[in-house]
Structures are given as C-alpha cells and as structure tokens.
C-alpha cells in the first residue's frame, strides 16, 4: 500500500527500520515483520496484556499502540531478557516456581514483571498482584506467578553489591 512511513527504533539493543502503514499495530510489526513472536495477541482490546512489551521504560500493550508512534523508541521484549545465554532471574523463577502452564501469557507477564521490579525491587504480594493486574492468566490462578516474582526479586536483591 501507498502511504508508508519508515520507523526506526531499537529492539532488544539492535537498531531496526521498518516501513509500515500508519495503521499498523506494534504487535503485528513485532510478530510479522521482525519475527519476534514472543509477545502474543490475546484480546485485542487492551485487557489481557499478552502483547506487553517494554517501551522506553514503560510496560505497554503493543496491540493498542501504532508502530509509527515508536520512532526513536527503545524496546525490550521477552526475547531480549536472556543475556549472554543466562536467563533473567524472572525467567528462571517462573520455571522454578511453576509460574506458567500453557505459556501464552508468560512473555507478557514476565516482561511486565521485569519493569515492575525495576520500579519496586522489593514488592509485597499485594503490590505484585496490583501491578501485574494488566496481565491475564487463565491457567495458573496467579499464585505461583506471585511466588516467582517474589523469588526473582530476592535473587536480584542478593545479586546487588551491598
């Protein structure tokens, strides 16, 4: 189609350029052009959070964001959390505390928790439940997700040089 905009942003540390129609949703650009299929589409009305990515230090629902709005942005998706072959503490904790079942909400959930722990490194159970309430999970009942986030928080805190 005519009327394409070239948009540049960094995705998990890499510079990317895409030529998109203004109406193209970020989730489609990520999944179909940039083949980052970690973020998923769950509800399309910005309720479920399966499409959550980290954009300029904010957790955003990429199904309710236009790619053209992302010019110059710095983005992190689930694919960017593992560093040098080492899983992020959250990824490890979700595994160790059985914080996932079908895995569909997991990328969005972990990406959201990643931002939460940067804003609040030592959240209470209440705070975790409140600040992940933009992410729906149909399998786990959240109990083990909360455990996993708490465990990751402790691990990250311990890793900080005192």
């Amino acid at each position, binding site marked *: *189609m005519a009327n394409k905009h070239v948009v540049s942003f960094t995705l998990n540390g890499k510079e990317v350029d895409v030529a998109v129609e203004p109406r193209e949703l970020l989730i489609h650009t990520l999944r179909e052009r940039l083949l980052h299929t970690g973020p998923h589409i769950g509800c399309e009305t*910005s*309720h479920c959070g399966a499409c959550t990515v980290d954009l300029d230090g904010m*957790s955003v629902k990429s199904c309710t964001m236009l790619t053209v709005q992302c010019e110059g942005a710095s983005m992190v998706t689930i694919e960017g959390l593992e560093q040098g072959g080492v899983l992020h503490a959250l990824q490890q904790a979700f595994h160790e505390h059985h914080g996932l079942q079908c895995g569909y909400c997991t990328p969005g959930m972990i990406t959201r928790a990643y931002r939460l722990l940067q804003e609040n490194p030592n959240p209470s159970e209440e705070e975790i439940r409140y600040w992940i309430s933009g992410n729906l999970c149909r399998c786990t009942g959240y109990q083990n997700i909360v455990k996993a986030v708490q465990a990751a928080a402790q691990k990250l805190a311990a890793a900080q040089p005192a």
Partner: protein
Amino acid sequence: MIPSAFEYHAPTSLPDAIALLGRYGDEAKLLAGGHSLLPMMKLRFATPAHLIDLGRIPGLRGISEAGNEIHIGAMTTENELVWSKLLAQKVPLLVEGARWIADPQVRYRGTVGGDISHGDPANDHPALMLALDASFVLRGARGERVVKAADFFLGLYATELQAGEVLTRIQVPIPPPGTGWAYEKLKRKIGDFATAAAAVLLALDGGRVARVSIALTNAGATPLKAAAAEASLLGRALDEAALSEAARLAMDICDPAADQRGDAEYKRAMAGEMTRRALLKARERAA
C-alpha cells in the same frame, strides 16, 4: 480488529497541531495515549482520515506548582499522577483516583488530557476535576481560553472543546490544608469502568461540614456535581441522618444508562453508597 487506513501526523509544536486540526477539521482526530481512540478505531466505530499524534509536542507533560494551583500538562500519564510526590502532598485525591484507572499498562500510556477530552462520563478524571473545581486550558487558532470543569462537560462524548481546539493544561486549585479527600469507586474488576464512583473533598470546622465538594462518575450523560447533596451537608455534623440525606440527594440527580454493570436502579443506589463511603473516608482524612 484492524483499524481502517488513515494519514498520520506527528507535529512537534502546538501551533502545527492546531494548524493540522484546522486543515482537516472533522476528518482529523487527536491521538494522545490512544487507549480510548485506538480500540474504537480497531472496532471501526471511529474511522478518522487523519490522526494527529500529540506525543511529540514538548511541554504538554509534567506536574508543577503555580501559586495556589497545580498545573498538569494534558499529556501527563496516569502513572505519572500516581507516582507524583507533589500531587500526593497537594492533591492526593488525584493520586487516589488515578490509582484505580484501568490497569498498569494502560496507565503508562493513558493521559489525563485524553481521559478528560474524550467526554465519556465513565472516565474518572471528569468527576475528579469537577470535585476539585479544576479549569482546562483550551488552545485554538484564535488563541487560548480557560474553561471551568463545571462548564466543560456537555453530554455523552460532548464537551466544550470546539473543532480546532486542543486541551493543553489542567489547572487544579490546591485544596486548603486539612481538607479531607476520597475517591470511592465500585468496579467489577481491574480494567473496568466504574459501576459508580464518587469523588469528595471535605473540610470540617469543629466537627461540622465547612466546605464539601461531591462529584459522581458514570451516573449520567456527564459527570455530575451533587450540588444539592453538598448544600444539605453544610454546617452539619456527618451523622447518619446527614449521610443518608446526602446520599439520597446525590442519587436524585443520577440518570445512569443500564449495561452489564447494572440497571439504573442499582447504579443509582451505588452512586449513593459511594457518596456515603467517600464522605466517611474524607472525614477520617480531614484535619
């Protein structure tokens, strides 16, 4: 759930944005956080030919103190309100209100200006601003004008905002020290709009109501100022009789639309209940 095609504009100055609005008129829509507009576009209820993104205009964000007012840039996000130390200190009602808007992700993107100019009585800021007696700075080709919240909300999705105008700033009078506050919101779940909600500011003098402000969310075509309820409370202690009368008078002005949250009767009753609870909580917080 795919929007229809449109032209995208990202002006970097307010005059440019206003010029674009003037050029495209009805064909254009302003894009702030996008969490009201984009879902409507994905459902193809809204099919603007031009989308004007306010996101690249400097100076539309931020919270500052100006004399006896707090000024909030229209593009300030809900989470910025939630985390603002200044607001927590000067206008805690807005922090409490913002905390229960939508969900964390939506609050990162959703803006106070978008929430207000959308003109949806189900949004929370309209009633909050009504309770705070805030004013809105509207900028258009013909310059700037300031409209009181009380004069701004005209009907369902209908506001004083004229074609070609942009809401740039919200001016909130700082309630006097000792003023109690509360936003009591009943909703089905996180992410939902209010079944009913009440915003209250309350000042006591010797245990009697000296000043009170009550506004209701999602109880009619516009946010509602419960003037009669306010009047009934002045000079009285917040006893059961006073609370009941205030709640009843608040319910009297409600004309809620039935939906899956409840029928008109329930929503009216909940508007009364939220008013009562907000008054009680505000009293606890009043000095």
